[in-house]
């Protein structure tokens, strides 16, 4: 049990180191950018601001100091919980992120859940009947979908369901012109439908491919042969042996794919103008809103790294012989 605690502790230390490393790299990248933060802050007012005022702004923000000092100040204020001020949204970064995160987490959480449940079921089905027609169709679906750009799927959904059939709204998280407190749950779900579909379709493909491979392995194992010899039906074997053994790898993959989930949500939110964390990332990047961009970077790193850490721990649980996530070629292609 002692080694078990040590294992988790080491993972947590690594997590903290990764966060610190990402903070340094992200800060350096933001410094490197040709976009001048004062210009970005002033926007169209730039013509009315003289050099003296610029110098004053620079002094107030501590921009006249060396980069090392700036980094130390920024990093220590982050540690105390002060994320800074977002020029784009004219609100504190913490407020922007918490508000955006609330609408994004619904989207990402549901997509995560759906891709897990549906992908796992499809993978089990395909893996239990390898070579059959159902397996071929599921495999074809998964292969094609794994190679499809998320934003193109989103555009296709938009063309078919919003423009062609007019079943779903074209954009946003709520009807235009309705006060936020008047929006009903049904309207929210209606607006969530397409982004959710776009995001889930890809996740499903990945989980299905992984589970299928695992399931084929399980169905060829000795204990399944033994169960068959005892007279178990295929359905029996799949439910009692297959699902149980394939579940942990699938959950592990789910946790390891949080980064892709967030990347997908950036693209899907952009296509559907869904006001989530993803579209805030894009705005921050395009307008040179450095505090917001850095805060989002750190937050998503925390989010994804925790997912990776959980996946690593689960790998350890699933197979104590593996010291860390197993490297297979399958993962190169993701």
């Amino acid at each position, binding site marked *: 049990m002692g080694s078990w605690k040590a294992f988790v502790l080491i993972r947590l230390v690594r997590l903290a180191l990764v966060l610190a490393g990402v903070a340094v790299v992200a800060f350096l990248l933001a410094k490197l950018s040709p*976009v001048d933060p004062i210009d970005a802050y002033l926007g169209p007012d730039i013509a009315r601001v003289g050099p003296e005022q610029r110098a004053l702004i620079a002094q107030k923000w501590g921009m006249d100091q060396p980069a090392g000092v700036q980094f130390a100040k920024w990093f220590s204020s982050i540690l105390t919980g002060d994320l800074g001020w977002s020029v784009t949204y004219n609100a504190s970064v913490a407020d922007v992120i918490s508000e955006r995160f609330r609408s994004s987490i619904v989207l990402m959480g549901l997509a995560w859940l759906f891709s897990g449940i549906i992908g796992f079921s499809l993978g089990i089905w395909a893996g239990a009947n390898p070579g059959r027609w159902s397996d071929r169709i599921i495999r074809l679906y998964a*292969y094609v979908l794994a*190679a499809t750009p998320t*934003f*193109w799927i989103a555009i296709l959904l938009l063309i078919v369901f919003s423009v062609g059939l007019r079943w779903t709204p074209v954009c946003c998280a709520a009807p235009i012109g309705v006060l936020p407190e008047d929006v009903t749950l049904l309207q929210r779900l209606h607006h969530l439908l397409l982004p959710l579909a776009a995001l889930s379709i890809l996740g499903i493909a990945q989980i299905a491919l992984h589970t299928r491979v695992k399931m084929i392995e399980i169905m060829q194992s000795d204990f399944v042969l033994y169960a068959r010899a005892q007279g178990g039906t295929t359905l029996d074997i799949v439910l009692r042996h297959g699902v149980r053994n394939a579940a942990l790898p699938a959950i592990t993959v789910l946790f390891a794919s949080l980064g892709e989930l967030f990347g997908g949500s950036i693209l899907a939110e952009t296509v559907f103008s869904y006001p989530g964390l993803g579209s805030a990332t894009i705005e921050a990047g395009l307008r040179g809103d450095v505090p917001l961009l850095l805060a989002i970077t750190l937050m998503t*790193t925390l989010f994804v790294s925790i997912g990776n850490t959980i996946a690593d721990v689960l790998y350890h649980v699933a197979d104590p012989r593996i010291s860390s996530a197993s490297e297979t070629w399958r993962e190169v292609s993701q």
Partner: protein
Amino acid sequence: MTVVFEKPPETPSLERVRPVIVAMGIAVLLLVAILLAASLTGMSGLASDFQMRLQPPSWQHPFGTDMFGRDVLARTIKGLALSFRVGFLAAGISVVIATCLAIAAASGSRIADGIVSFFIDMTMGLPHLVLLILISFALGGGAAAVVIAVAVTHWPRLTRILRAEILQVRNADYVAVSRNFGRSRWFIARHHILPHLVPQMIVGFVLLFPHAILHEAGLTFLGFGLEPGKPAIGILLSESMRYLMAGKWWLGLFPGLLLLVAVLCFDVIGNGLRALTDPRGGRS
């Protein structure tokens, strides 16, 4: 005494190789189309023709025309050429980075190994797209920024595989024999270890290539990639967004479809190559 019968390794039968051959055929077609497009559609396809604005697909313009009357097929192929160039460079640089870091990690120094594994954790801990946006933001956008951003985000998995490969080969008997013959580390690295990495590097390159293309298109679509004037697939699709509501579906459908076909082809080829090089038979 026990006799162990080893199951003969699965030979790549025609059934298994067929998709790869089909994919190669399509890939060659695409490459030919790109090369031909450079000379054929050079002017006529991309010229604006306001009489032919936003025409639906027809025999004359199989993919329809865009808001300036330009042929969407010609622009898509141009865009694919651009994507291929970016993807080729990015995947190539990625493989070089992966090889260097894998050699450093497996060189025997624990510190180097630790540093490389920390870099891997860091790169994998950030959502790729966020890192891509950050790098593109830092470099001010443009083709060079996209190539660098995509190359810098795609090396970790190949690095892990190459590192494991080197560690395995380094402990092989024939390397020990060679060392006992007094061969230098450099000689062993060049003649015994590097040749083993080449197949993995080629497979890695072919598998990274389609993903580099996908990420380039995504980044460009979001406005952080190639400049708006260029006929990149991402630009075509983001332009199409403005005309979707008016029912101009062909602007959004075809460029993405061709991109998907290209990505799928190289994915299938890469997986086929992997199955050929993997001594354990690979996974179907």
